[in-house]
């Protein structure tokens, strides 16, 4: 479970995150929805302790990120916005590197990687060098690398960004599978259908603040809009910034 309480983060004069609070529960997919520049990535970066909040707390399974950042990172699987691989290493070596950094023993590493290869259908690329991977192959490898330590909580920053239709569908199926395994899945997106189809709960962020926090159906009902997109536009109160 991930709890975020009143997060603030400013870069100079710009208040990127200005009082964000929400809870992402186990066995649920929580979507962080917002226009570009709303503060989604900055919020997630504070969750996986890359940045320190100016104010507010992050709790992962009850552990305070300010007190035990390494403990928080151990309980998180993170697919950041930046998802570069080491091109001179094979997919397996890329994943194994992160498994070692998590301190997994050799037997666990082998079994975890094998399980991920099956789940992500990447047997054909696992022993190829990452140089020349397609976008979809890169994302698969990056996800396997992020989840190799079998974390309870999974954070995905725009996971379907740049993927084609088939890869996007596979990604959605994989996220549902993570949910069925009882994990807490938190992902950011600006794609309406994706959020509508996947999420148990939507947290809408605009200008660094949470402007709505409910199930997708409830959001539509609240605003009286026919589609989630219309609801979203009504919630953030303008049409600007809707690049999706």
């Amino acid at each position, binding site marked *: 479970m991930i709890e975020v309480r009143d997060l603030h983060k400013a870069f100079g004069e710009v208040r990127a995150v200005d009082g964000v609070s929400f809870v992402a529960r186990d066995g649920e997919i929580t979507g962080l929805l917002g226009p570009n520049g709303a503060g989604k990535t900055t919020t997630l970066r504070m969750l996986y302790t890359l*940045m320190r909040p100016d104010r507010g707390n992050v709790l992962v399974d009850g552990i305070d990120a300010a007190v035990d950042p390494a403990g928080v*990172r151990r309980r998180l699987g993170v697919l950041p916005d930046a*998802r*570069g691989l080491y091109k001179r290493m094979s997919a397996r070596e890329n994943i194994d*590197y992160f498994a070692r*950094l998590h*301190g997994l023993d050799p037997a666990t590493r082998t079994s975890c990687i094998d399980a991920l290869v099956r789940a992500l259908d990447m047997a054909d690329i696992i022993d190829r060098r990452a140089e020349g991977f397609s976008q979809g192959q890169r994302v698969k490898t990056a996800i396997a690398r992020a989840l190799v330590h079998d974390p309870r909580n999974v954070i995905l920053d725009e996971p379907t960004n740049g993927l084609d239709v088939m890869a996007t569908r596979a990604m959605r199926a994989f996220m549902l599978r993570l949910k069925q395994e009882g994990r807490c899945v938190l992902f950011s997106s600006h794609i309406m259908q994706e959020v509508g189809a996947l999420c148990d709960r939507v947290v809408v962020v605009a200008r660094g603040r949470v402007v709505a926090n409910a199930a997708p159906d409830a959001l539509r009902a609240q605003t009286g809009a026919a589609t989630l997109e219309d609801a979203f536009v009504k919630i953030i109160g303008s049409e600007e910034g809707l690049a999706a």
Partner: protein
Amino acid sequence: MKAALTVFWKEVRENLRDRRTVINTLLTGPLMAPLMFVLIINAAVTREFDKADKALPVPVAGAANAPNLIAALRRAGVEIRDAPADPERAVREQEVDLVLRIPAGYAAAWNAGDPAQVELVYDQSQRDAQGPVARLRGLLDAYAAQNGAMRLVARGIAPALTRPLVVAERDQSTAQARSGTLFGMLPYFFILGVFIGGMALAIDTTAGERERQSLEPLLANPVSRGGLLAGKLGATSAFALTTLLLGITAFSIAGRFLPTHKLGMSLELGLHFAALTLLVMLPLVVLLASLQTLAAAFAKSFREAQTYLSLLMFVPAIPTLLLSLYPLKTQDWMYAVPLMGQQVTIMRLLRGDPIAPYQFGLCFAATALAALLACLVTAWVYRSERLAISA
């Protein structure tokens, strides 16, 4: 600690797969510098000796005016040639190194006992001409002195009377020390090799990692940044150290082919030299690796990092330049200055001069302290929030 080792082995393995890095570490860094150095020295020494041994060709204008002088020069190994029509122009345009002109009035002046004049036409700014000019002038002076003495004897005066003062030179430099002045550049070549050897990794593990967007995922692992940095610094140092080892080995072998015996010099190139050079360079390897990592950590891209490091590469040249411009007497404080300490120590080792253990220790400790400081500063920069953000 375990994480640092994981990072270390991953960086080493990954970079061994990069052909350019391997060539820089195993070939360019260690071999180019010492080999180029040996070639240059070899060529310079051989050229000097060729000139000294060979007959000296001298174009002479008006040779018929002084048959005795010409005969004396011939006996001394001068090959008399016909002078070009316009000696001044020929020298200016570097067609010949020098021309000796004997004016028509030479014989008359000689016979009258007046100073007879000969003209030496040459260009002082031509390095190549300096040797022949000095040789010819020496021969002419000797001829003049010999004939002067004979004239004195003919008048019943002891020639010694005109030489109230005689200078006898007693050169105190040892054979090793004489060769040492030639080899002042060598420590710089070793340091440069270390720099080149570590450069690719320093960039790849910091700015490169950021540019290919793999730094943020890496930092999401439950490993302290100090641990990550330790592994990266270790890998950079390991590559630089490999370069140094190969460089010292290459020089120890190639140095034996130097014609130092022709100069009556000898170099200490044994195991003693190799081991102590390695030891004194060890902290410098770490210092340079962490300075390179620090500089590259500030860079946003690979290219920017390369620019910073190329500028940083001039820093090791400073003590070498200073010592060659102002040949200071070796003093204790020099050992305490990183880079300069190594320069002085390696020079003395090469020359076979004694180094007190405390001087050696001072050099090692001072550089090690500087390396530790550089590592701490780099670690501090590494903990900053801005470092991680790729975009």
